[in-house]
């Protein structure tokens, strides 16, 4: 499905922090319905790239177009309304809220009740609305298999579960594009397998386009449609997983030639 339906188009994005160039003229595009992975060594600018898309950072120049809308001057909260959801590399859950409330926060822009109508709970449509969204949130909870912890405080959960709750929260936004920042970091093999399955389901059943940063090459090569490689803030390769595996630059920059055996094993 490559080059058919450009959904997210990034052109010449550069980002600098003082003298440090985090990103230099990066351009790529993601098609609708794709699983697109970004890989690269530490400090290559992968997370900076996601932050530019989700609105944490404002790149110095370049353009980020999503569904033919220019995102570059929008605030993060305005981008999420357009349908960009994301998870974080270092967990960013609302630690003192229950898992359920965390996910309900994801419904924020889909809910209508506010500080005046919300408190009139029984007399406005707030209760009905909250319960309808609760139903949809429960579907997400079912899908991610976290129903046993829905009433637990998010900050008390184990790492793998927290990652899953964060994914649930991002799904609750009903995004068209979901950005996953190292969804499998720190997970064991079983959790990784679960997570891979969730990501594929997201992509195939919910029709979300996925942009993912991941270090586990087995996962990246296994579930991505296309892969982009960053090194020192520059794009050094982009293509099908097999092409990337064979690319000389990539081997030198990141994969390490002598590790080739290990890689194929994974």
């Amino acid at each position, binding site marked *: 499905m490559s080059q058919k339906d450009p959904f997210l188009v990034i052109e010449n994005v550069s980002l600098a922090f003082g003298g440090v160039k985090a990103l230099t003229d990066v351009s790529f595009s993601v098609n609708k319905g794709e699983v697109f992975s970004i890989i690269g060594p530490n400090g290559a600018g992968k997370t900076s790239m996601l932050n530019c898309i989700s609105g944490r950072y404002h790149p110095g120049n370049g353009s980020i177009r999503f569904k033919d809308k220019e995102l570059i001057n929008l605030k*993060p909260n305005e981008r999420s309304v357009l349908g960009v959801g994301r998870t974080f590399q270092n967990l960013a859950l609302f630690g003192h809220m229950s898992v359920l409330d965390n996910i309900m*926060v994801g419904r*924020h822009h889909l809910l*209508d009740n*506010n500080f005046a109508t919300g408190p009139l709970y029984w007399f406005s449509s707030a209760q009905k609305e909250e319960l309808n969204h609760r139903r949809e949130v429960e579907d997400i909870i079912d899908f991610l298999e976290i129903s046993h912890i829905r009433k637990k*405080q998010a900050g008390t959960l184990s790492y793998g579960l927290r990652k899953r709750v964060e994914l649930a929260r991002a799904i609750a936004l009903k995004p068209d594009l979901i950005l996953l920042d190292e969804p499998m970091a720190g997970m064991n093999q079983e959790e990784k397998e679960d997570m891979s399955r969730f990501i594929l389901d997201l992509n195939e059943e919910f029709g979300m386009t996925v942009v993912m940063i991941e270090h586990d090459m087995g996962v990246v090569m296994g579930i991505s449609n296309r892969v982009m490689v960053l090194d020192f803030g520059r794009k050094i390769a982009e293509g099908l997983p097999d092409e990337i595996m064979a690319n000389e630059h990539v081997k030198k920059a990141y994969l390490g030639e002598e590790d080739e055996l290990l890689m194929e094993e994974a």
Partner: protein
Amino acid sequence: MITLSMRPCGDFRTTYKADTRIFETRFILLLTIMTVVALCFAPLFLDAYYLTLFIQVSYLGIAALGLNILVGFTGQISLGHGAFFGFGAFASAWISNSFAIPVWLSIPLAGVLTMAVGMMFGLPAARIKGLYLAIATLSAQFIIEDFFARADWFSGGSYGAAADPVSLFGMDFDSDQSFFYIALFALVFMYLWGTNLMRSRDGRAFVAVRDHYLSAEIMGINLTWYRLLSFGVSSFYAGIGGALYGHYLGFVSAEGFTLMMSVQFLAMIIIGGLGSVQGALLGTIFIVLLPEVLEATVSLIGSTGLMDAGTLVENLAYFKEMAVGLVIILFLIFEPDGLAHRWKQIKSYWKFYPFAY
């Protein structure tokens, strides 16, 4: 965690509606309703002294809940809550005196006006946080206090302003017995309002902003608006509390709304429990009763003749201030989560007795 459900065995919930109830079991709901009904008969039996205490708890408790929404739920800080409380008192008197608007309407209007003023002073919160925000709100405290002293048209300057009693259906609520009902209604109404706010969209947004503002923004929450709104809602509560205070006393003078009062509100929510609706009420009850208990203790010591009661009574005012300070320190050390948390622990102790957890 003790935040786990405290439901009795066999209470299975089969609808989402049942799962979002304020009162977890029918028993607690019934108990609460019975308490409110019992309170309705209180003026028939209780001494005016106790009624005064209840009315005090009610108007201070409403304002304290407002501060808890700002500090406990949204994670901001305000040192100007006392001034907003005073602004509500003056605003309601001003609205009802100058525009001949009935008092029952001027109280909510005063709340809305205080909300607007609070949002104006909350503007710095869009940019700064922590200690810097504390200083910015401290300036609000002094600016508003100064405004009371100078704006004769609004507050009557150094003379103060007269506030008419609430009058409904041709009845004046000017005694402790009658105002008690106004206070009770306002208390129940504002606390239900607060509870419902916290379980609907904007309440969750407040907590999200407190817990992780970066990811809250990614979740589609407009940080600037919610920080401002939090100041607005908090000032609204302060304004309602202040207006009740004014119409209860019948007279508002500028002296009372000092920094000390703001700190006292902070003490209430720290003692009661930051980020808990019922905590705000518990903390208020604690702070209101503390000096009364002290006074009773002093007179008890005096009656035993062990100490010179005269000196004790003379210094009672100092004791009271010291006691508030001491209690805050003790709470910060031993129960930083406040009375609300302690209450949960007591409940879980009952439930799991004789096991420790």
